[in-house]
């Protein structure tokens, strides 16, 4: 299927529309990290970083970096008024304890029951690394996975059962991809929106698990072209 898909930035921009005003939010590596740039105007959200920052602002400008003020990806950042610093322990009281409102992580696979695999490709060389993803996945009252709909080889990343090592079970609430917005409902996956130019049947074809949907499925409204 060679139709155009959303860019990574467009996925991030669509994901940003899921954030309620006033939300406390953790963003993972990859596409989720781009979400911060697309928070709708008029909305204020407070970004959490698992190394002990609440109220993280944009990346530091070149020449203004403070290497004691970095995000979980080691990137020098800034803080907004009302920010606080705390320990990694307390940062994970926030994640695991369910105190954040929305977390957005990247994904390698998501299963139809909302299992997430996002930390290790089977057979990959090296030790791998978990980081904070397991704590975040388990605790998030609302977990959004923002990822490409298919792997580079075309394999669907939304599957009946994950074959990659799991991050957490039954944790994902919504998947936002370059083809669709899909909600994990108690018994099934529900196709909520399709990317411009795509039909529900075409999205289903790219998906490894059954999608249910209403007779008519709206097309994503994207804030950026």
């Amino acid at each position, binding site marked *: 299927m060679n139709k155009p898909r959303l860019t990574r930035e467009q996925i991030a921009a669509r994901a940003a529309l899921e954030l*309620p*005003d*006033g*939300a*406390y939010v953790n963003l993972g590596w990859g596409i989720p990290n781009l979400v911060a740039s697309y928070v709708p105007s008029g909305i204020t959200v*407070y970004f*959490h970083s698992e190394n002990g920052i*609440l*109220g993280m602002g944009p990346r530091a400008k070149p020449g203004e970096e403070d290497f004691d003020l970095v995000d979980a990806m080691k990137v020098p950042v800034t*803080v907004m*008024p*009302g*920010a*606080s*610093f*705390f320990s990694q322990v*307390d940062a*994970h*009281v*926030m994640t*695991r*304890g*369910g*105190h*954040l*409102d929305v977390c957005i992580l990247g994904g390698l696979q998501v299963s139809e029951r909302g299992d997430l695999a996002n930390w290790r490709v089977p057979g990959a060389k090296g030790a791998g690394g978990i980081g904070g993803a397991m704590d975040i996945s*388990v*605790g998030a009252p609302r977990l959004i996975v923002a990822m490409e709909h298919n792997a580079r080889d075309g394999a669907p990343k939304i599957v009946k059962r994950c074959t990659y090592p799991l991050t957490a079970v039954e944790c994902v609430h919504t998947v936002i991809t370059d083809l669709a917005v899909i909600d994990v409902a108690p018994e099934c996956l529900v196709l909520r929106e399709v990317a411009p130019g795509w039909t529900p049947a075409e999205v289903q074809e790219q998906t490894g698990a059954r999608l249910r949907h209403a007779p008519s499925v709206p097309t994503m409204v994207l804030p950026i072209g």
Partner: protein
Amino acid sequence: MAHKNKVFPTLDAAVADIPDGASILFGGFGGAGFPNNLIQALARQGAKNLRVISNNCGTGDGELGILFKNRQIRSVIAAFPGPGAKYFQEQFDAGEVELELVPQGILCERMRAYGAGIPAFYSPVGVGTEIARGKEERSFRGKRFILEEALGGDYAFIRAHRADRLGNLVYRKAGRNFNPVMATAAATTIAEVEEIVEVGALDPETIVTPSVFVHRIVQAKGQRFV
């Protein structure tokens, strides 16, 4: 948790929705850090059958005393009800209020576990004492421990010194006590504070309770009911 406009105009508004039967954590120790103004508002509001978690059970009419006096409390989990808890002691002796006694540090730790998403932990405290009754005992590395479960509530009533309008809190001296952990262990945390300052006025390095744990803020200057 996201709550826009956390600042409430009055004490009464901050506690208006508390239903009968609610479980409420109350900060304060030794006369310091009690949310006395919120307690007075709850006395006016009149919610009944409350399940209360607090280090102590009031000092005369002060602190939790007024809520016992008004017979608003059905059960209490406490470390040290206290000799000054006149109304509680009367109702306890009459079998009108239930009490679970918990060692002070375990009271803290059970609330911390709740706030941290930990359902239960093993504790060395109370092993071989009446506190251990009915609790699972287990050995680790040759030492005995008992299983303690997390403890949280519907609401936390806390007292802080200063809040910014987002809900970041700083405390004053020994007024800190149970307040920060209770802020993490309730669905809705209500903080009465001496002073509300603008966002950005608190140093991020010195904030003790980050805003994510606080849902309602109300200013209550300098009233002390001890």
